[in-house]
């Protein structure tokens, strides 16, 4: 279209021009359509994945409980009091109380085997519920109280419709007799569906209805704390030195190439390194968030260094020159001007690195964090597991109810990451404004 003017009115040329123009527009439209379908496909897959995970997880967030009248026999309860006479602890055969209450509901059940089946209606966590109730109010000792007791996982699945009652008895995890008992309780309106507080208040358990994420959440937090404390200062220091101060020679070039390569090393390799160096050589404890955090810090370091260097490089040289011009030293230039300006970018890199580390299981497998741990970790040297490892272990359990628990674990992990990311973005924005 360079030669407009004299030929402007040539009809053949004009027609050709119009055709070419049309073709260009068509190309653009096609490109747009491709781009849009790529975006649509990606979001569609993501939406499908999210819906299916959230959908399967829903049953895990509630649990069915049975309200029973449990008699707390005063003579059978040991009460521990402190100096002021206040009750500090109560101890009794809570399981016995629960079983008596169940038997009283069905006097016709007498044989040992039948009683055993009857007891299986309730979760092994049922006695804990009685204990908690009495502990909270010791005045209940000697009375018959109504307690909400968790049902066992299979019965809960029946209530949620995840085990089909109409199947022949041999194909079902729950027998006809158990269903009859359950139906009687339902008719008496003793069965209620409540929020599954266990999912957040308990540590791991082999009983799906008692299994919770508290331990894994705490473990993830402690591990991430160690990772952050090690990788952030080290990574930023390294990047600042390399970018702003280090001489450009062969050695720094080699280091640079190595850092870039390190970012692409499979994460399991860091686990092997952690096993060999931290555990075998330095004799640090296995399964501890300290070691997990150190291994993940090594994994995160290259990400942070690369991101930090990139954001340092994007600070315009005029800032440095201006600061130098008014007499600032090299360190002052970096600390007062360059680093604060680059901070938002550095934080983004750190967040991405940490988010990656928080979802990592492979390196932690090697250092013993893929373990069954009931107690909630209290410090960085106590035994702990992390959220993704917990999800993996639940996924491998044979019990049906763990399917929903696994998805719930994923939902919690994703929300945890979203929360951390959101928080970081918030701080980053605030940081940016001050400048």
């Amino acid at each position, binding site marked *: 279209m360079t030669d407009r003017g004299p030929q402007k009115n040539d009809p053949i040329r004009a027609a050709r021009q119009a055709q070419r123009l049309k073709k260009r527009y068509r190309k653009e439209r096609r490109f747009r359509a491709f781009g849009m379908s790529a975006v649509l496909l990606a979001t569609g897959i993501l939406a499908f994945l999210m819906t299916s995970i959230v959908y399967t997880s829903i049953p895990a967030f509630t649990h069915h409980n049975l309200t029973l009248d449990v008699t707390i026999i005063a003579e059978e309860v040991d009460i521990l009091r402190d100096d002021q006479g206040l009750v500090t602890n109560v101890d009794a055969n809570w399981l016995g109380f629960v079983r008596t209450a169940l038997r009283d509901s069905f006097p016709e059940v007498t044989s040992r085997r039948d009683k055993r089946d009857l007891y299986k209606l309730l979760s*092994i966590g049922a006695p804990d519920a009685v204990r908690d109730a009495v502990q909270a109010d010791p005045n209940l000792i000697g009375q018959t109280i109504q307690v909400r007791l968790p049902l066992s996982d299979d019965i809960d699945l029946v209530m949620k419709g995840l085990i089909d009652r109409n*199947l022949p008895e041999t194909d*079902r995890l729950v027998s006809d007799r158990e269903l009859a008992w359950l139906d009687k309780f339902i008719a008496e309106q003793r069965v209620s569906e409540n929020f599954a507080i266990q999912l957040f208040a308990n540590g791991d358990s082999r009983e799906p209805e008692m299994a919770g994420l508290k331990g894994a959440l705490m473990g993830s937090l402690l591990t991430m704390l160690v990772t952050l404390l*090690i990788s952030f200062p080290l990574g930023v220091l390294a990047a600042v030195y390399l970018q702003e101060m280090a001489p450009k020679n062969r050695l720094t070039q080699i280091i640079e190439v190595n850092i870039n390569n390190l970012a692409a090393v499979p994460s399991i390799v860091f686990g092997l390194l952690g096993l060999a160096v931290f555990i075998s050589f330095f004799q640090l404890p296995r399964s501890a968030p300290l070691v997990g955090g150190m291994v993940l810090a090594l994994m995160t370091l290259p990400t942070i260094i690369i991101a930090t260097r990139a954001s340092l490089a994007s600070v315009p040289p005029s800032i440095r020159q201006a600061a130098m011009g008014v007499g600032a030293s090299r360190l002052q230039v970096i600390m007062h001007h360059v680093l604060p300006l680059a901070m938002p970018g550095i934080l983004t890199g750190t967040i991405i690195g940490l988010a990656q580390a928080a979802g990592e299981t492979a390196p932690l497998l090697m250092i013993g964090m*893929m373990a069954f741990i009931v107690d909630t970790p209290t410090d960085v040297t106590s035994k702990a597991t992390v959220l993704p490892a917990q999800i993996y272990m639940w996924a491998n359990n044979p019990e049906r109810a763990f399917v929903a628990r696994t998805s719930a674990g994923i939902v919690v992990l994703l929300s945890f990451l979203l929360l951390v990311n959101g928080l970081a973005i918030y701080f980053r924005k605030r940081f940016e404004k001050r400048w």
Partner: protein
Amino acid sequence: MTKFKFALGALIGVSMSVSAQARDQIEVVGSSTVFPFSTTVAEQFGRSSGFKTPVVESTGSGGGMKLFCAGIGLEHPDITNASRRIKEKEFKNCQTNGIDMTEIVIGFDGIVVANSKNAADLKLTLEHIYLATAKKVPDPNKPCQANWCEPIDNPYVKWSDIDASLPNVKIEILGPPPTSGTRDAFQELAMSGGSKAYPHMNALKKSDKSLWKKLTRTVREDGAWIDAGENDNLMVSKLAANPDAVGVFGYSFLDQNADKIKGSVVNGVEPTFENIAGGDYKISRSLYFYVKHAHVGTVPGIAEFISAFTSERAYGEEGYLVDKGLIPLPKKLRDQYRQDAKTLKKLAM
């Protein structure tokens, strides 16, 4: 980077003092097959004994042995689980590190060959399984010599090619990957076991054991056997969706999913709880754990833990481990191992 390794080293040095503290928690490592049982006992033990709940790690039988035999001292685990017996090499390694141990068998685990509820029943023999899964099988078209059959690449495409009584369906087996102990046991019990139908293979076992192992334990690679990953739950849903597929996995998954899948009859025996416990069902193996003597008394609760594990309440016929899918030992063996646990009988090989 070197500089920062340096700094890291300093940091580790500081934290080293941490590791010297005493341990008050039992550490268990080992097989992922024993893991569900070991963790159940650990949890019950933690609830009722007043000791801290033991930590159980799933490292695989081999990985567990390696950690267990590494030495004596609080940084090493106290107990290792195994879905097979300790190997002679591992035992020697343990001995050189001065480790004495007690061996406890906790029960059996059946390996089932299962398919969808909607598919035809499979009535298999070990020979059928061997012919359906091995990479090289005896040539069916050439009569065998007394002591040799020419091994050829597995020609069987449909189950009915193996035996007319089997369904006219393509062979498609979802099985555990090579890293799995279930696969080792399947290869040993079902495949090598099935080859016993051929006298020349038995002769070969005596004359050239490594060739025999290679012939009977190599799984076919032409697509009829599919490594389905370690997650058995996934396999169950794949089987439910595809009626032609057959899966190989542990009994507890069949028990939990009896509404979706059914176990195939092997050598005329159904894979039921009673048949596996009675030893009639052929593809079953023993599950073990090993206790380090030097740690008993040093780490609190070990003696109590193994006594809880071997109590009737746990591994007995009506114990809570049975609810988790463990198949108990006969009464006599249970009593014997309970005694071994009490007296810490030293293992000798």
